């Protein structure tokens, strides 16, 4: 692996390798001193062209727990505001000897463009509506922990994962479609037709019109964040109607597997795409939402570890 740009291009073997490494990283996170010298003397740069709390923080902490120097560039304070192109910014980061660049960008393909102009490993932390591969990986880890805790081969076959909501604009939905199906799971998409992309049959998923059909027997239910501006663009009549038709609630979950795991990539609109009771695991189903965030740090440590060559004196895991 030279870079992590998306799970569509990542082999099942590489996905298993990252996830197995993430399990070891979780051991580090459970220590009283959460620090290993693995990436001492290495520099990790996060280059975020979009706002983010959890992804950026978890990458930064992942780097720091492994003793790398982590630098954050937020675009508002960078030369991008002076009109610098993405490729020039990446070449500048290469020149200041960054060992890995983590990029989030509103344009699909931005991480590919970055990787095409530098030998520095690039991690895609979300590009437009294209992919968010570390989210897909942390979701796979969370699902495995609940449904296949003993599966060291990461085989998720037989599991049904239903993703509900604004899949058209969701990079999480795409990364999960690739990542989970490569591990054997079945992925369903469901939502209003205005939020289902044309040509969805190009992905390894099945689209469902009715929420109850989509949730039927589902082992995992993932609600996607609904951007309120979808309403303004004429894709939805109202948040109220959306919530009634597509919200994940105790009542809509009745057709799912009795032990269904509920996930959400965050940040949540409580009461819109997910009810507060379901989000907090008080509706009789399991909520994995807190576990997703915890696993995010471990998965990102694994990605940094596998993409950056550890220093000679660095401890190997």
């Amino acid at each position, binding site marked *: 692996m030279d870079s992590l740009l998306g799970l569509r291009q990542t082999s099942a073997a590489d996905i298993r390798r990252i996830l197995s490494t993430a399990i070891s990283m979780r051991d580090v996170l459970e220590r009283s001193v959460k620090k290993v010298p693995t990436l001492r003397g290495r520099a990790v740069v996060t280059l975020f062209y979009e706002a983010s709390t959890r992804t950026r923080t978890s990458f930064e902490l992942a780097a720091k727990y492994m003793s790398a120097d982590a630098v954050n560039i937020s675009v508002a304070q960078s030369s991008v505001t002076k009109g610098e192109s*993405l490729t020039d910014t990446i070449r500048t980061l290469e020149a200041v000897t960054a060992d890995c660049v983590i990029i989030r960008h509103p*344009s699909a*393909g931005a991480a*590919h463009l970055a990787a095409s102009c530098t030998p520095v490993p690039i991690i895609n932390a979300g590009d437009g509506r294209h992919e968010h591969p570390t989210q897909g990986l942390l979701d796979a880890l969370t699902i495995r922990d609940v449904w296949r805790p003993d599966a060291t081969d990461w085989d998720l076959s037989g599991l049904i994962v239903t993703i509900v909501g604004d899949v058209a604009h969701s990079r999480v939905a795409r990364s999960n479609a690739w990542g989970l199906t490569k591990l054997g799971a079945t992925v369903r998409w469901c939502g209003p037709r205005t939020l289902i992309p*044309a040509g969805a049959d190009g992905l390894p998923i099945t689209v469902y019109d009715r929420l109850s059909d989509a949730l039927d027997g589902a082992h995992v239910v993932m609600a996607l964040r609904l951007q309120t501006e979808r309403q303004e663009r004429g894709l939805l009549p109202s948040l109220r109607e959306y919530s009634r038709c597509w919200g994940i609630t105790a009542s809509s979950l009745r057709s799912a597997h009795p032990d269904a795991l509920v996930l959400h990539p965050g940040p949540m609109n409580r009461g819109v795409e997910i009810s507060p009771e379901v989000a907090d695991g008080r509706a009789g189903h399991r909520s994995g939402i807190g576990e997703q965030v915890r696993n995010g740090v471990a998965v990102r440590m694994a990605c940094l570890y596998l993409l950056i060559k550890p220093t000679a004196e660095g401890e190997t895991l």
Partner: protein
Amino acid sequence: MTFALRNGRVLDPSQDLDEIADVIVRDGRIEAITPVGAHPSDHEESAEGLLITPGLIDIHVHLREPGFEYKEDIETGTAAAAAGGFTAVCCMPNTNPAIDSVSVVRHIIERAEAVGVARVYPIASLTRAMEGGQLAEIADMQAAGACAVSDDAFPVQNAETMRRGMEYCAQLGLTVMTHNEDQSLTKDGAMNEGRTATLMGLPGIPAIAEDIGAARNIIFARLTGCRLHLLHISTSGTALHLQRAKADGVPVTGETAPHYLVLDETACEGYNTNAKMNPPLRREADRTALIGALQDHTIDALATDHAPHAVYEKEREFDRAPFGILGLETAFAVGYTHLVQAGHIGLNDLIRLMSCAPASILGLPGGTLKPGAPADISVFDLTECWTVRPELFRSKSRNTPFAGWDLSGRCRYTLVGGRRIDV
């Protein structure tokens, strides 16, 4: 003074001619096509083993001058045209300032006379500054030499403006060339809506946006009697609208570009901005439907939509890169290799689609080797195989999706008004 091109394969679809012959040129015009050696001349050149055709005509190019000379100018754009076998081009008005006044029309004609190596016919904008509001001074521009009217790149959205513009042009006998797009359906779109766009996470441009735009403009042509030419047809739906309108006697013609006939939306994979243009590359089913529309003569002509952009403008995020690709230097060879040699159309058809057909759409001189016509001639070597190397282009820009392609057929030289233009 007479000049003879001797012993070449003379192919002229305007007079159903395909034979080994001599082409005799006198004072910048075609004198005669004669049996080999039958006519003496002051000068001569052997064209043995070469193909002699009417000079190719591209009625849809962007020369970028005035205003965007860093992408292309009249000198380099016509040099690219000559290298591709074109002896005349029609340039679109989205310059800066736009071709919306007599002074810009005259400027282009004068610049082309001074530095051009192909004829240049300016296309006037329909509305002032191409803003879709007030009509431009079209009659004045026609008198100054504008060959047609177009809103290319900024399609008029307001139906009332389009209706009035076409009424006005009908009276002047000017053809209106339309980029067909209902932009309320294409906001933020970067490539064809469908499977590949969804895989790549890019906002889509639906085929129906073109179909609706074309259908609307055909309705106005029917109402006003204005001659309508549909630019760069990329969808099977637009081809179908064109076919039905022609059957109904509406004065409408249509063109497509070589890239829509040999590429589909998957060429954008890897975020290849050199495969980004508007209208976008469509589905494979559209591509094959367009080949069918060439075969049954629904589509009248090929044009390139030559749209130069600087390397740094294309080397960026896909959704932020400008639309458009080069065409002049690859169109003939792409057509010859992938349409003629592939067996979809005959060589005679390809030359027709690129010479007499476009000339006839806009009533331009040329496109024929009939006696008395301007001596605008292209000479090709069909046996030459070459690899597309953008760094060798005459164009200032490099944005082609055909880089690295192996193609057959190459222009050796052209004659423009009898003056030899070496490649």
